[in-house]
């Protein structure tokens, strides 16, 4: 009974709790927080939170919700693009970010028809992660070039990037592996989908709570 409660209600919604935390910190410390790309970061967490709540609501009512998970990377990539264009980056880096954003949207447009027939299109998450990797590489190279005063670890935008990166990389590998197991004919894995979902929720919770904690400690 307790295990069921733990899995279904606590760990099942831990992703929503995780996404709500940075939003609450942003709300309560809105006047104190000074961060490059602040609005884009808030938009990212807000969109993610709304879509996750929607997916959970559909799942709770036994409705088909895979289309929500398929659209999450598409909706998130836009605030991510704005976030990376507001933090230090070279002109070439900004142009590359825009180019890859365009490619990503184009890919979505061409594959959408195929995607809705697949239980979960893990490739979207993989390319989403690759996009974040490219943007992060640009940001880090620019930081290395500028060598601004103070340690990079003391900058809040660095922690936002770290949070994005952690979530994107872990999820991309996890979902890809999950997708491979299904494509390899192991349909049984679908019965254990909640384990993968749990891993995803925990990853998202860790990435959000670490960022929220750093944000709160820095600006309280």
């Amino acid at each position, binding site marked *: 009974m307790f295990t069921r409660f733990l899995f279904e209600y606590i760990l099942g919604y831990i992703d929503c709790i995780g996404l709500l935390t940075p939003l609450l910190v942003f709300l309560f410390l809105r006047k104190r927080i000074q961060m490059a790309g602040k609005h884009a970061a808030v938009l990212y967490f807000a969109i993610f939170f709304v879509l996750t709540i929607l997916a959970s609501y559909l799942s709770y009512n036994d409705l088909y919700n895979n289309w929500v998970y398929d659209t999450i990377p598409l909706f998130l990539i836009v605030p991510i693009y704005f976030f990376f264009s507001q933090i230090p980056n070279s002109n070439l880096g900004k142009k590359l970010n825009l180019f890859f954003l365009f490619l990503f949207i184009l890919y979505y447009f061409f594959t959408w028809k195929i995607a809705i027939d697949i239980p979960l299109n893990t490739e979207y998450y993989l390319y989403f992660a690759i996009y974040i990797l490219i943007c992060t590489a640009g940001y880090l190279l620019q930081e*290395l070039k500028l060598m601004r005063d103070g340690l*990079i670890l003391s900058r809040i935008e660095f922690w936002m990037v770290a949070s994005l990166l952690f979530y994107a*990389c872990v999820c991309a590998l996890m979902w*890809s592996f999950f997708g491979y197991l299904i494509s390899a004919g192991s349909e049984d894995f679908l019965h254990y989908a909640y384990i993968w979902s749990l891993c995803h929720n925990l990853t998202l919770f860790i990435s959000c709570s670490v960022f929220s904690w750093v944000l709160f400690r820095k600006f309280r």
Partner: protein
Amino acid sequence: MLSLLLGIISKVPVIFTIVLGTIFVAIFFIFLVVFFIRYFQKLYHLKAEREKLEAQLANEVNNARNEIQQSTLNNISQEIHDNVGQLLSLTKMQLNLIEQELGNEHPLIKEAKNNISRAMSDLRDLAKGMSSERIQLLGLYESVVQEAVRINKIGKINVRVHSSGTKREPEIQKQLVLFRVIQECFQNIIKHANATEVAVAFIYSPDQFEISISDNGIGFDVQAKTLAGEGLGLMNIYSRVQLVGGVVTIESVLGEGTKIKLRTYM
């Protein structure tokens, strides 16, 4: 065209995307490690460079301060010699004229003449101590000997100066700074130490030389004074000797006296 593209995309095996993704993530993690190594290396270099620049700036400030002080002392010394000294000489001559007019030796005039002679002698010594010309002419060792003679004249303290090893003088800037440090030490001894005997030793060795100033005064707690930041004179001694690339060690025992060692390279 669209259906062709969709067909190609749908036929791409899942394993291909997994391998591609894994390679990409692995490359990125290598990049991340390299980034942090490079970042901290650069940070370390920048920090070292900043510290070097700060030390350079501090040295320049100290140099400027010493130059201003030296120039002020030279001006005062010049003023004593040219103005006050001349006035005293004139007064002495006027007293001689009065004595000649009176025709006999008046005891008060004689005493006034003696006082003026003493004042002239003291002022001359003071001017010599202030001026850097003396050091340029005589060198550090002889200037310290003369300073000792001047202090001995006061009569309260007996200063002895001696040397060991082959006598050599460091460059003039170093000599000037060290001479001012030794003067500061003498001032401290006269003001605070309550000493009767002071020994100054110049110890020459092939690549460095050491000046040791020891007294038999009341001594003081060096650590407490330094930590409390009370000894401005002490701080001056430290910063000046550091300026010429030297090291200062101060040993003091309460009731037994103090020994200050100034060690510098030639």
